[in-house]
């Protein structure tokens, strides 16, 4: 651990990132450019989130890292180990114990609390990018609050599919001003962005942008009066913990069409099972 500066990054870099985070907090939803560094992992593996986490960590923090809700997948394990080694911080898989949670594409099921920071890994921070490839143009559209194109996109969804087919990275409006990409979280998670007591920070390493949602900020998912936003999920209960309110992953179990639905949030699912809840396919405890 003594081979690294605390939390890996040098102090000059951390100051630059910290200034960007503060400006992001002051202008919720606006993407602040920052001089993203090479990190010892490839772009697309959370380099933006890792830099934001490194700039925020103190030795007193407890860090939780999730990848699509799971604590035990490659991306989550490697980032957790990275900070155990370079910052020496405590880590946990329990949402309630963590002070900083770095996440790839999910918001934990358990409600977040005051003092917690949720750090999102963001691949493409610009919500208008697939509609307008030029950065000069999207920047001007944000400046002029010219968001008609996004509504046209959602309208075309309805015209083609009969419903808004966008199911993840669903665009939101922050405090009535900026349209923001909430990173590729399922739209099931969108309502949890709004009015939470936790601070939400977003880091895009390759695209060199940081943005933020302060606690208790109003976030509205874009929709139409006659096609209101719907936080959808698979219409099942978890096959391990029987919870029918959580976001589910579909797991193929054999080559005869067998499948099961399980909570994407592994900590939530394990906590429920520890409390005695059993789903349809959960291993039953021996009667003896």
């Amino acid at each position, binding site marked *: 651990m003594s081979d690294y500066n605390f939390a890996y990054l040098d102090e000059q870099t951390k100051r630059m990132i910290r200034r960007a985070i503060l400006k992001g*907090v002051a*202008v919720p939803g606006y993407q602040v450019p920052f001089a993203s560094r090479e990190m010892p992992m490839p772009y697309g593996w959370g380099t933006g989130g890792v830099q934001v986490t490194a700039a925020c960590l103190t030795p007193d923090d407890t860090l939780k890292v999730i990848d699509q809700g799971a604590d035990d997948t490659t991306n989550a394990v490697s980032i957790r180990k990275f900070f155990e080694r370079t910052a020496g911080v405590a880590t946990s898989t329990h949402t309630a114990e963590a002070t900083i949670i770095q996440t790839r594409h999910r918001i934990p099921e358990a409600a977040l609390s005051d003092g917690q920071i949720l750090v999102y890994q963001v691949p493409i921070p610009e919500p208008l990018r697939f509609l307008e490839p030029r950065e000069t143009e999207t920047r001007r559209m944000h400046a002029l609050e010219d968001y008609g194109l996004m509504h046209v996109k959602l309208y075309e969804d309805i015209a083609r599919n009969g419903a808004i087919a966008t199911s993840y990275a669903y665009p939101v409006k922050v405090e009535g001003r*900026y349209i923001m990409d909430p990173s590729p979280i399922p739209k099931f998670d969108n309502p949890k962005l709004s009015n939470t007591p936790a601070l939400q920070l977003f880091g895009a390493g390759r695209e060199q942008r940081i943005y933020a949602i302060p606690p208790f900020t109003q976030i509205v998912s874009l929709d139409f009066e006659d096609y209101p936003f719907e936080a959808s999920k698979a219409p099942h209960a978890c096959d391990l913990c029987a919870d029918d309110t959580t976001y589910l992953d579909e797991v193929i179990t054999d080559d005869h069409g067998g499948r099961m639905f399980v909570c994407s949030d592994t900590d939530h699912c394990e906590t429920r099972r520890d409390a005695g809840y059993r789903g349809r396919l959960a291993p039953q405890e021996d009667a003896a």
Partner: protein
Amino acid sequence: MTALSMNAEAMTGSFTDAPVQAAHGFRAVLRALSQPGEIVTLSGATPPAPMSPAAGVVALVLLDGTTPVHLAGAHDCPALRDWITFQTGAPLVAAEAAMFAIGTWQALTPVTRFAIGTPEYPDRAATLIVESDHLTAEGTTLRGPGIDGSAQLSLPETGAFRANRALFPLGFDTLFCCGDQLAGLPRSTIVEGR
């Protein structure tokens, strides 16, 4: 060597364990700015008078050679100029060119001098570090992002902050320092009253 002409005081009063103390300092500032009305306590810096310890921590956490700083009024003194230069390397500039400005509210006025960013880059706006005689969670009512309903904070005036909010998403951001205490007022906060 420029250090020869410097006051020896310029070389003292910094962090003893920079990575850890700066991390704690930043987290406190982040909390203050993301939850306006909340007052946090900072420690680790002992800058020369008239700078408060809280403002000293902010300077050590956020300033470096890429951040032009304006020292206003009594803060524009040799001891503090030397301290900022030695400890952070930040260039000292006029109010209009500053990314950070440090001084009492009276010395910083008129605050319309400071950078408010551009429509394309609202982040290119100044942060005012306001030295205050008292700082309490009472007085002017605040609403907006970071605030659950409403909060109170003792502000030196309301007019300038209401005018600043009207510029949103442009505008300056403010950190109030008093002794080792600090509160934040981002441009997004709605300041009530006249």
